[in-house]
C-alpha cells in the first residue's frame, strides 16, 4: 500500500492531513529542543556547557548560575527513589504472576495501576500535610538513632529531622514510580512460556528457584526497560517533590537536609525571574532536563523494543 494515494483526490488530501498530524510529534520534539536552545543562548554564551554543569553557585543577585546543585538534587532523589521502588515493584510483579490466586490477580493489578493514575499534585499535598509530619516525628528520629550511629552510613542522617528534606521527597517519588516498574515487570514475567517454567518444576525446582533462574533471566530486558522508564519519569517529576524538598540550592551528604531539583527550581523560580540572564539560565536548566530525560527514555524504549522482538520470535 503506497503512503500517498494519488489516484483519488480526496484520498490524497486525507492521507496528507493524517501525515501532517503524525508529523506534529516530530515537529514538537525538535521544536522543544530548538526553542529551549534559543531561549537559553544568553546563559549558554556566558557560562558555557561544562562550567554551567559543574558550578555549584546559583545566585540570582550576582547573576551567577550553575546547575550542579539542581542536578545533584535530581540524581539523589531519583536514585534513592529507585533503591526503594525496584525491589518493591519486582516483588509486586512476582506476587501477581506467581503467588496470588487467580481471582486476586486482576484487582491487585488494577489497584497498583490506580496508584499511577493519581495526579502528582495529590502526592505532593499528601506528602506535605501527612507524610512529612510522620517522617519528622517518627521515622527520621528512628533512622537517626539507629543507622545514624553507624560510622560511615551515619553521615546520611545528620541534622534535625524536619520532614521537608531529600528523604521525604525520595519516598514520595518511589511510591509514584512503583506502578510503572511493577506493571511492565508483570507483563514481562507473564510472557515467560509456561512450558519452560513447568520443565523447571518437573526437575524439582522450588517456586523461588523458578522465579530466580527461569522467569527473571527470561524477562530481564523488559524489566530493565521498565526500570529505565521509571527513571525517566522520576527525573522529570515536579509537583510531587515541589512541596517537600524545600528548594534549597546546596549539595549535602545528609538526607535530612532540604535540596533542589531541576524541576523544583523551575516550578518555584520561573515566574519570579526578573532579569534576562536569570530567565535564560532557567531555560538552560529545562534544556538540561529535556536532554537528560530524552536519553534515558530512549534507552528505556530500546530495551523494551528488544524485549518485544525477542518474545515475538
Amino acid at each position, binding site marked *: *500500500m503506497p503512503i500517498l*494515494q494519488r*489516484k*483519488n483526490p*480526496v*484520498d490524497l488530501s*486525507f*492521507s496528507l*492531513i493524517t*501525515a501532517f*498530524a*503524525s*508529523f*506534529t*510529534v516530530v515537529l514538537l*520534539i525538535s521544536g*522543544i529542543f530548538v*526553542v*529551549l536552545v534559543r*531561549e537559553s543562548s544568553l546563559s549558554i554564551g556566558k557560562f558555557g556547557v561544562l562550567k554551567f554543569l559543574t558550578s555549584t553557585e546559583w545566585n540570582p543577585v550576582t547573576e551567577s548560575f550553575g546547575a550542579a546543585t539542581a542536578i545533584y538534587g535530581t540524581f539523589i532523589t531519583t536514585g534513592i527513589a529507585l533503591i526503594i521502588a525496584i*525491589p*518493591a*515493584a519486582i*516483588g*509486586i510483579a512476582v*506476587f*501477581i504472576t*506467581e503467588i496470588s490466586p487467580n481471582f486476586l490477580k486482576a484487582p491487585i493489578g*488494577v*489497584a*497498583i495501576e*490506580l496508584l499511577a493514575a*493519581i*495526579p*502528582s*499534585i*495529590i502526592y*505532593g*499535598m499528601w506528602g*506535605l*500535610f501527612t507524610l512529612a509530619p510522620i517522617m519528622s516525628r517518627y521515622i527520621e528520629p528512628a533512622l537517626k538513632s539507629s543507622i545514624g550511629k553507624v560510622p560511615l552510613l551515619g553521615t546520611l542522617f545528620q541534622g534535625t529531622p524536619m520532614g521537608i528534606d531529600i528523604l521525604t521527597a525520595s519516598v514520595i517519588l518511589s*511510591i509514584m514510580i*512503583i*506502578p510503572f516498574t*511493577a506493571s511492565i515487570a508483570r507483563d514481562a514475567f507473564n510472557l515467560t512460556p509456561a512450558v519452560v517454567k513447568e520443565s523447571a518444576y518437573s526437575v524439582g525446582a*522450588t*517456586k523461588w528457584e523458578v522465579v530466580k533462574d527461569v522467569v527473571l533471566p527470561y524477562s530481564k530486558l523488559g524489566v530493565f526497560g521498565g526500570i529505565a522508564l521509571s527513571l525517566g*519519569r522520576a527525573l*522529570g517529576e515536579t*509537583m510531587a517533590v515541589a*512541596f517537600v524538598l524545600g528548594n534549597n540550592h546546596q549539595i549535602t551528604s545528609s538526607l535530612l537536609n532540604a535540596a533542589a531539583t531541576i*524541576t523544583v527550581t523551575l*516550578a518555584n523560580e*520561573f*515566574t519570579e525571574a526578573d532579569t534576562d540572564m536569570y530567565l535564560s539560565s532557567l*531555560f538552560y536548566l*529545562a534544556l538540561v*532536563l529535556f536532554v537528560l*530525560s530524552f536519553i534515558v527514555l530512549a534507552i528505556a*524504549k530500546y530495551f523494551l523494543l528488544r524485549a518485544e522482538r525477542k518474545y515475538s520470535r
Partner: protein
Amino acid sequence: MNVEEKRKFESLVALSLSTLAAIFGLFWLVFILGDVLIHGMSALKLSLFTHDPTPPGVTGGGLRNAFMGQLLITVVATLIGVPVGVLGGTFLAEYARGTRIAQLVSILSDIMVSVPSIVIGTFIYAILVKPVGHFNGWAGSVALAVIMIPVVLRTTEDMLSLVPWTLREAAFALGAPYYKVITQVVYRGAATGILTGILLSIARVAGETAPLLFTSFNNSFFSTEMKGPIASLTVSIFQYAMGPYDEWHQQAWAASFMITAVILVITILGRLIIRWRYK
C-alpha cells in the same frame, strides 16, 4: 538443616517478601486515597462550587473560578489534542503501516509521552506567553494538548492495528477508496478503543499542574477570558497548600478530593470498557 529444607526455606522467605511488597504497594494506595477522602469530605461545602475566592481572612470563599477555568482549559486542550492525535495515529496504522517513518514516529511518541511536563510548560511559555507579554488560557490549553497528542496518537495506532486487515480487503474489493475504508469501516471497528484512549488521556492531563504554572498561571477572579490568565484547580491547590492559612488548606483538600475522584472514576471506567470490549 539439609539441602532440601534449606531450599524450601529460601523459597518461603522470598515468596513472603514478595507478598509483603504487594501489601506495601496496596498500603500506600489505601493510605493516600483514604487521607484525601477523609480530609476532602470534611472540607467539602457547597460554597466551594458557588463562590469565588475571598481575600485571606474573610471566610466563605470558594473555588468556582478554578472549577470553571479547569473545565475550559481541559475542553479546549481536548478539542486541539484529540483530532491531531487520532489523525496522526491513523497515518501510522493505515497509510504508513509497516514503514520506517511510522516506526520512528511511533518511538518518538512513546518518548514524548514521558517527557517532563514542566519542560513542555517552559516551551509553551517561550512561544505563546513571552511574545504576547502576559499569561493566557490558550497557552495552558496548548500545553495540555501537547501532552495529550502523543498519548492519543499511540492508542489510536494500537487500536486501529487490532482491526483485522481482511476487513479492509473486503471493503477494497467493493471498490471503496482508502479514505472511505478508514472512516466507514476501520474507525467503526475501533471506535470503543479510541474513545477509551481519549477518556484516559483526558484523565491524564486533567491532573497536570506543572505545565499550567507558567502558561495559564492563576487568577483569583472568575474569568472565562482565554486571552488572559485563568485559574485552574491544580494550580490553585498548589498555591493554597503552600499558603499559610488553614482555610486555604481546607479548600485545597476539598479540591484535591474532587479532582482525584473524577480522575479515578474516568480511569476505572476506561479500564472496564477495555476489559469488556477486548476480552
